[in-house]
């Protein structure tokens, strides 16, 4: 069960991380 929970947490964390990086790159390109 622990491995299953870790899998879901890692999956969500990776996508949240990607979303932050993507939003930050776009803000930088907009000159903010």
């Amino acid at each position, binding site marked *: *069960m622990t*491995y299953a929970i870790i899998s879901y947490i*890692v*999956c969500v964390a*990776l996508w949240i991380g990607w979303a932050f990086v*993507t939003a930050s*790159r776009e803000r930088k*390109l*907009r000159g903010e």
Partner: protein
Amino acid sequence: MNATIPGWWNGLGKALWLAALALVATSFWLAAGAPIEVQMGPVQKIVYVHVPSAIATLVAFGVTFAASIAYLATKDWRWDGVAASSCEVGMVFATVVMITGPLWARSAWNTWWTWEPRLTTFLILWILYAGYHVVRASLRSESRRTISSVMGIVFFINLPIVWKSIEWWRGSLHPKNVTMVPEMRVTLLIGMAAWMLFYGAALLQRMRIEWRAEALAQSDEGALAGSEGRVRG
């Protein structure tokens, strides 16, 4: 070519994000309530995120392949943008697969990693497309888009190898056929639909960076041409 993000792009992006996040949440909820597999126990629930992510990886790199061909045929920067964006989103999906796989393998096969055909070919796939980003990021010349497109086409060769690896080589631990009870199958199908929608939303979101970068490059070129004109005048 004008590099302004069209209005419909923003609307479609928001709608896709809403639908994708709602469906992903639903798939997590269904996964929590899905029947527990008799042999593997609760760890089998990793399948509902591992398999859809693997399928989304192959679709994303397939889109990179198609968009790379389209770029070489048309030289329209937007196709290169789609290829690079899809490749980046695909890399995140591939990383999810590379992390959830060993977690599942530890329980199912009693090992974190084994050099069986599917794992080995998928690792090669991950390394190849990571290389795509490294090479692309290191290029600043005019040939950047062309070289990226060639990589997007050449690396695609590995996709059918990953797909067919369990049939082509012996010793695969991945099953060729899986039998599931209807509740499990429905949960898996909803998970696949959810992560495909998520892929679409993430692709549109990532493509915004390409629009912005191109707009910036065009404005820089315009400013440079203007200043050269003033110097000549």
